[in-house]
């Protein structure tokens, strides 16, 4: 029964819901919600709808396989292509987020202030303010949707990229 309720909630809300919100609304524990969501995710794999998971938030979305049908209807609103700077910054945020501006600047060798601003305005990334350290940037649900992945780990060469970064850094320490 609670699986049906969770499914219905996600359908009605449309917007991403967090584990905590779902648990509160359905009246069960968060780890139970998490288990049900895993089940739902598997059940939806062959449907026109998929379950998106990002940083503990969940949302239904159309399956990337059916984007062809929907693109024409909706694509009018999809904006211009991204500049090389925007793409680069978005990649860093997508693969390594949540990440601070200082770390992004360091990897790109430039001040990313304007690029981050433009990505924020386009709704591709969002900013979370922290009390002590600088703000953290992360990719949004919408951006994941544009990329057609239900989870950041599905990004191309995700594990490979992360391993490489670790390896490069280690090599350096050994030198």
């Amino acid at each position: 029964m609670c699986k049906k309720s969770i499914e219905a909630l996600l359908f009605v809300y449309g917007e991403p819901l967090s584990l905590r919100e779902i648990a509160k609304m359905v009246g069960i524990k968060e780890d139970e919600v998490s288990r049900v969501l895993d089940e739902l995710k598997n059940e939806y794999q062959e449907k026109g709808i998929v379950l998106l998971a990002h940083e503990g938030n969940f949302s239904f979305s159309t399956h990337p396989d059916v984007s062809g049908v929907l693109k024409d209807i909706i694509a009018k609103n999809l904006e211009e292509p991204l500049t090389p700077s925007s793409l680069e910054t978005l990649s860093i945020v997508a693969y390594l987020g949540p990440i601070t501006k200082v770390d992004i600047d360091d990897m790109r060798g430039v001040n990313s202030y304007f690029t981050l601003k433009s990505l924020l305005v386009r709704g591709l990334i969002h900013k979370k303010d922290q009390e002590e350290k600088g703000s953290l940037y992360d990719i949004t649900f919408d951006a994941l949707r544009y990329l057609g992945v239900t989870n950041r780990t599905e990004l191309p060469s995700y594990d490979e990229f992360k391993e490489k970064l670790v390896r490069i850094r280690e090599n350096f320490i050994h030198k």
Partner: protein
Amino acid sequence: MFQVTQEKFSGPFDVLLSIIEARKLEITEVNISQITTDFLAYVRQLQEKNYVEIGDFLVVGARLIFIKSREILPKLTPIDGEEEGNLELQLQLYREVKHISKLLAEIYLVRPMFGRGYFEGCAPEFLPGRNLTLSSLQKSLSHFFIFNTPHVSSKIERRIVRIEEKVEDILKRLESGLHFEFNELFKEKERIEIIVLFLALLELMKAGVVTPIQNEEFGGITVGRG
């Protein structure tokens, strides 16, 4: 010499990487210092359109010069408190970033997924109103049948409105005053009557009996004696 292409670089690291790759070099500190001249040549031809961008290039240029001078003067160390940063490490990391940004570009908007929010405003809102019930539908449907049965419509009589009648009406109005608002004659009149009234006015106008005055398009008509 590195050929400056029309390609849009995302920043100084992008330019450095392009030079190194064009020369098929490994990313090492020694190699980086070797391409200082090429890099500075690139910076020199940059148009000063964007000072923020130029600034970033100058910072990297300065770091290159520092690395190069350290080769010549090995004892040179950074001034206290100044973090040198490691260009070699940064460039190696940047090369990976550059790689994934290409991968990302390949999938961006190719097979997008859509949430329900994308359809907001596309469909008309559903506002049925509180009185939409089965019985209210049934009731209005029965009304429809009553009003559309043939014997009802056959009872409707056709009224004949004569233009002469209306001419009289207008003239009578003019007897009581110098002029009047034509619209006043329309009050609680059927459409056919209004049409005939208007025709009567045109007739009187043609005969020069009355003078209508209309100050603006679609405005009210004042009728006075001719």
